[in-house]
């Protein structure tokens, strides 16, 4: 039984191994015509080549830098503005109509406009990621702040907390689960958006590498890029999941009802 239990976590890998084996077989047996699917092993070899030559690292780094800057700026602004809008009715009333107007515009829809406004440079993808992460995090923060039980607020006030203390010691900590939901979802989304931006407009980054590979019909490189993307999306999402757990798991699961 112990042995089985120890094996259990590894069982999730079984479908992946099965999938990769099928892939390798299908490709080796030439079941898909026209060399459209290189074998998995070839992809791994290419991955190695790209890594050692520095091409992958370089492109990856430029994408990563853009994501980090755009996402940090977008989420910090979203959290600050969301806190203000959730806490101060006047801020909510003033900004909500504007934000409701801009929120439905798909992030990629901004590309043509931003290309003309800020040109094709590093600012373009950063700006796109900013827009992509700002709105959802803003909304999640507003909801989180507004949902804090009024009784906690009254309790903190009667215990002597000023407006600012109330916000920093009770309201924001209790809104954290909601804020983290936004961060977690958008951390993955930022990678999806950066690729699109790099594919259309920017000559460096994983997206650009994808497009170059496409024009050279290097399917193995395309797949390498996609794998890197998948891994990065996953790492970012898991990173925030981990942070959320660290910060809130001691109490969050049980805090649905009044304490």
């Amino acid at each position, binding site marked *: 039984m112990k042995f089985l239990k120890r094996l259990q976590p590894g069982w999730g890998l079984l479908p992946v191994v099965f999938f990769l084996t099928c892939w390798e077989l299908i490709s080796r047996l030439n079941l898909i015509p026209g060399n459209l699917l290189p074998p998995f092993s070839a992809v791994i070899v290419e991955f190695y080549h790209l890594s050692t030559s520095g091409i992958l690292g370089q492109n990856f780094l430029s994408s990563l830098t853009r994501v980090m800057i755009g996402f940090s700026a977008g989420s910090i602004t979203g959290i600050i503005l969301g806190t203000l809008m959730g806490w101060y009715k006047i801020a909510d009333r003033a900004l909500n109509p504007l934000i409701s107007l801009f929120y439905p515009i798909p992030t990629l829809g901004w590309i043509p406009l931003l290309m003309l406004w800020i040109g094709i440079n590093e600012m373009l993808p950063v700006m796109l990621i900013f827009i992509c992460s700002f709105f959802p995090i803003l909304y999640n923060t507003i909801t989180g702040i507004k949902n804090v*039980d009024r*009784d*906690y607020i*009254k*309790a*903190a*006030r*009667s*215990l*002597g*907390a*000023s407006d600012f*203390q109330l916000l920093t*010691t*009770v309201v924001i*900590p*209790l809104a*954290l689960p909601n804020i983290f939901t936004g961060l977690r979802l958008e951390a993955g989304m930022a990678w999806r958006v950066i690729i699109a931006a790099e594919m259309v407009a920017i000559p460096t980054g994983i997206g650009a590498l994808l497009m170059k590979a496409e024009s050279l019909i290097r399917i193995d490189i395309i797949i390498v890029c996609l794998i890197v993307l998948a891994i990065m999306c996953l790492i970012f999402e898991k990173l925030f999941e981990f942070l959320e757990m660290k910060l*809130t798991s*001691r*109490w*969050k*699961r*049980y*805090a649905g009802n*009044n*304490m």
Partner: protein
Amino acid sequence: MPAITCDNIKNFACNYICLQVRDKELLSLLGPNGSGKTTLLNAIAGFTDYQGSIQFDGKRIDRIPPNERGVGYLFQNLALFPHLNVIDNIGYSLKIRKWNPVKIRERVNELVEMMNIKHLVGRYPHSLSGGEKQRVALARALAPSPLILLLDEPLSSLDAQTAKYLRTELKQIQRKLGITTIYVTHDLMEAVNIADRLAIILDGRIEQVDDPETLLFYPHNQKVSDFIGAPNILDCDYCKNTGQGVMEVGWRGLKIYVPHDGNAIRRIAILPRHVYVSEDKPRGPGVNSFVARIQDIIPRMDTVRIKLEINSNSLLAEIPCHIFEEMSLEKGKQVYIILRMKRIRVFENGNDSHFSG
């Protein structure tokens, strides 16, 4: 500690309320749901708008924000901060006031000792039982040494046994600290047990403010009388200690036993809903069990009041409608009644009094 004066408080739930709470007093604000009890507490704490004025020791505090009023507030749902453990919950108000961490620890330890919750310090609210949460919440409210303590039905979510235990403790702590306290409840028994004085609030108006005995025996008007449920008041002819904490009192030829260990009993009272009516002779030792005749049956909202005659004396009983319908009671019928021993309220020859049970 200041006295509280509410002067013509008017808002959506309070209808020109005037109320004075004396220094160091525990006043129970008693009324049915929706009568404006909690709203009045919120007005005193500064959480709701009102017309009129509230004074602490003669000083108007209407313009002072809630965080500067120096009021400890124990909420009905306790509102312990879920993201802080017991120590941080209790020390919250001190941290806010930027106390030195060593002093915070000292004060928290002192409260933890007083409330007997030393074993809970590292735990989070979700892992505490109702009674434990109650103690933590009270410790938290007392931490900044508030001038006034407001308690909003603090025991309503607890089981009867824990509530009784905590009530006694609450009273002791209030006495020890001498803190002016308003205790909101809709339970007459709870109010009578804990309070120095009771204020009856009905439809946003204070109808009567008196000590428990006066209030029970001399309700000012029909509304108060209806609310407290017209207790049967029995003047005792004699009183004899039978030992083991039980006293025998005589009431017009009947022997009634009450759990009491103290001065001689002058009067006893029992609410009609605590007089049990049965068609068959009840089993058991037959303590406080008598034969009575039904004089009258008076239907009310969801209960039925039954006027009984025992040895040519009148006694009122009250039973829920659904139970009445299952029985076949009619005027003139002979029934058995039991005065539930634990529910009999005792008034001694001195001023002190308490509910047994």
